[in-house]
């Protein structure tokens, strides 16, 4: 039996706009709460979304975030036009970071973002093309399907 799609939303993220950084994740939190997603799974997805959004804002020119909720799982795909990640395995190591001082002053760039996203996902995948951009896929299974 295939999963039934309950919601599909697409959000634009502006690179380098630190004032707005986090607004999309805030909207996603409200949308998921309105859908009746339980607090534990909602929190996990919003952490993934917020870290992904901050990465787009910090590193890329622009990005899109697509949220697809089915009766089985929540899927979040974040795609950006940015520098790309040359070594994905290295980028996933806790503590590894290429952040600038400016990014660290914002409270990010301590090498925990991607590991946080992976930890909170049931399925997690990064695809990157250096010089073009990065896509990050996260799936969180809902309680009856874990």
């Amino acid at each position, binding site marked *: 039996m295939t999963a039934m799609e309950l919601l599909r939303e697409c959000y634009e993220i502006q690179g380098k706009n*630190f004032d707005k*950084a*986090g607004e999309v994740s805030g909207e996603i939190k409200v949308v998921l709460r309105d859908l009746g997603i339980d607090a534990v799974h909602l929190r996990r997805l919003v952490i993934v979304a917020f870290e992904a959004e901050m990465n787009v804002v910090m590193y890329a020119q622009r990005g899109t975030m697509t949220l697809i909720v089915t009766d089985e799982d929540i899927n979040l795909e974040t795609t950006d036009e940015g520098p790309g990640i040359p070594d994905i395995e290295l980028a996933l190591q806790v503590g590894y970071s290429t952040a600038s001082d400016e990014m660290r002053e914002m*409270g*990010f760039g*301590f090498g*925990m973002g991607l590991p946080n996203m992976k930890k909170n996902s049931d399925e997690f995948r990064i695809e990157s093309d250096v010089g073009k951009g990065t896509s990050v896929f996260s799936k969180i299974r809902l309680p009856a399907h874990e």
Partner: protein
Amino acid sequence: MKLSEIKDLLQCEVLAGEDDLSVDIQQVVASDGMSEILAFAKSRELMITGLTNIQSIRTADVAGVSAVIYCRGKRPDKKVIDIARQKRIPVLVTPMVMFDICGILYNRGLKGVS
């Protein structure tokens, strides 16, 4: 411990959430790294940070903490306080430094998250 007691202990000024100081606090997460707070907070903690930008309050919202205390007397912009009010997150500021805050709260029985 009630947030109102913590407010007195740390000589805090309340910037948002004056009516929500009766919340009970058991655990504390303290860092200037927002990803660290997102990684370790499990929800309902007290968040202590020296970072006063808009991401601090967005992190507090995403992490689901009960309240935020800004240390070293650092005050956030009005925009940050407005978002905190909108999200119903109490915000306090203390002149104390992070090390002293953590020591005082630890001595009173509060625990960190790990």
